[in-house]
């Protein structure tokens, strides 16, 4: 497995496109977060100094949403290259055990998304401190439970959607299918919110967004999104396990 992960790592980082794209993701997410937090007077109708420290950090962390979407696109493009560039022939000739091949890719993207997520969270957090300092506000303190929960909860988002995209891209054998699936899963809760409470009550607790909001503490207490920590983690794992299993089974049956 170590060899497969090393090879998958090389597949990503040998490409100039990957290196540039990932740097771009970090840069643009950081800039977007900064812009979101200094334009609250336009977007929320409240000046930044009227916001609490958590609200400033929260506005800045919207950069993580953008990073998640950019990571979905990157993952879809990278994984689907096996099929579009037909490298799957040489990949499976080297690693014919398809479950092993899938897991190698899955773990590589898991590690990549964790590193990217931790790096971005750190940078955005530091950027929030600068914004707070510039506005003579108190610094954000990780000793504060709400801030800590928010930061840790948000960190899960890019990792989750990245892994979902790996499985979906292998299942659909295309970047379009993989990206569309993850973005639909991300966007469906907004659609559900348009339905009556009875529908929301049934569907929202099963959506990954509810789990992520609950983990980050942004799900309002008593709302249909609010789940316990254990339930949230379990729900996210269930989504990942089910999608990975479906992808592995279809991948094993497929002829190339």
């Amino acid at each position, binding site marked *: 497995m170590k*060899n*497969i992960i*090393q*090879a998958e790592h*090389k*597949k990503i980082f*040998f*490409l*100039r*496109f990957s290196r540039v794209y990932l740097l771009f993701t970090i840069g643009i997410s950081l800039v977007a977060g900064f812009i979101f937090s200094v334009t609250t007077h336009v977007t929320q109708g409240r000046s930044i100094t009227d916001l609490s420290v958590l609200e400033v950090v929260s506005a800045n962390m919207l950069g993580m949403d953008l990073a998640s979407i950019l990571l979905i696109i990157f993952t879809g493009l990278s994984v689907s*290259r096996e099929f579009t*560039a*037909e*490298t*799957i*022939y*040489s*990949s*499976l*000739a*080297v*690693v*014919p*055990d*398809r479950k092993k091949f899938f897991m190698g890719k899955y773990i590589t993207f898991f590690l990549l998304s964790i590193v990217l997520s931790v790096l971005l969270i750190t940078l955005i957090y530091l950027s929030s401190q600068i914004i707070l300092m510039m506005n003579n506000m108190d610094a954000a303190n990780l000793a504060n439970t709400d801030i800590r929960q928010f930061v840790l909860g948000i960190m899960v988002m890019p990792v989750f959607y990245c892994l979902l995209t790996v499985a979906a891209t292998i299942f659909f054998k295309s970047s379009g299918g993989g990206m569309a699936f993850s973005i639909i899963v991300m966007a469906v809760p907004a659609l559900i919110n348009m339905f009556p409470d009875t529908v929301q009550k049934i569907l929202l607790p099963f959506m990954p967004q509810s789990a992520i909001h609950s983990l980050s503490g942004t799900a309002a207490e008593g709302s249909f999104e609010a789940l316990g920590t254990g339930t949230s983690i379990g729900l996210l794992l269930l989504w990942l396990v089910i999608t990975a299993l479906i992808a592995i089974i279809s991948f094993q*049956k497929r*002829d*190339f």
Partner: protein
Amino acid sequence: MIEMKNLTKTFKGKISVNQLSLVIHPGAVTGFLGPNGAGKSTTMKMILGLMNPSEGSVTIDGQSYKELKQPISKVGALINGNAVNPQLTAKQHLELIAAASGIPKKQAEKMLRTTGLENVRHKQVHTFSLGMKQRLGIATALLGNPETVILDEPFNGLDVDGIHWLRELTKKLAQDGKAVLISSHLMSEMQMIADRMIILAQGNLIADMTVTELAEKSLGSYVKVSCENNEELISLLTEKGADIKQSKNEELHVHHLEMKQIGLLAKEKNLALYELTKIQPSLEQLFVELTEDKMDYVSAGTPPGKGRKLK
């Protein structure tokens, strides 16, 4: 050793490979021939686990390809010369294959030298010609120093130097005791390099024998004889089971009797022979003879014929 037992593949009810049972022998170059759609690539893909057989099995030293610990040291294959990320350099491509297999990096450099790609190792593959891509595919196949080498249409895109190089390479691999399985539409090349021929048509095994055996069993193989008394010789040879045709210039074309037998029979009857020549059909002629009427795709104007199966 690769062994196939009743290997079958169907696609939506259409049989692509039908009950194929054969062995790929070590120390020999085996030509894998057949018209388009005969099932050659499908068979090769089933050997490598890229396609799942509908029935039957294929094993490498008793194990399926998927069960092998380090598969590319058992079987190295070139299935698709384009199966390389075009944005990678030749060296990067080989290095990541080596990394995935746990093969030392230096082996990649060695293969670049072997395949003549040393000077372009830092160039991205999208700048490569088809021939260079084929060389890279062959380098990938040989990276693990495998016991069996499978090459699907390796001559495609190769220039004269490349063809000469590949000819020598495959012969050397066989001399080193490796099993080499090559599919190609270049009959003249196959005749030059292959020790054994496997011919498929519409998924069925038509022939599995040496080129000499194949020629001997061919309808196109005969002995050309010129004699002082054709009538006497015809009656003599017919008695011994020969099938004889007489050409306009009085030459006899004798089938089903060996040259030596004809010579001895003529000597017994004191018949002077002016010519006694063994006529061997080319591989292309043999191929056409065996696969006529067994092609899925036929060009307009191709005359109908009868294919047959050799045993």
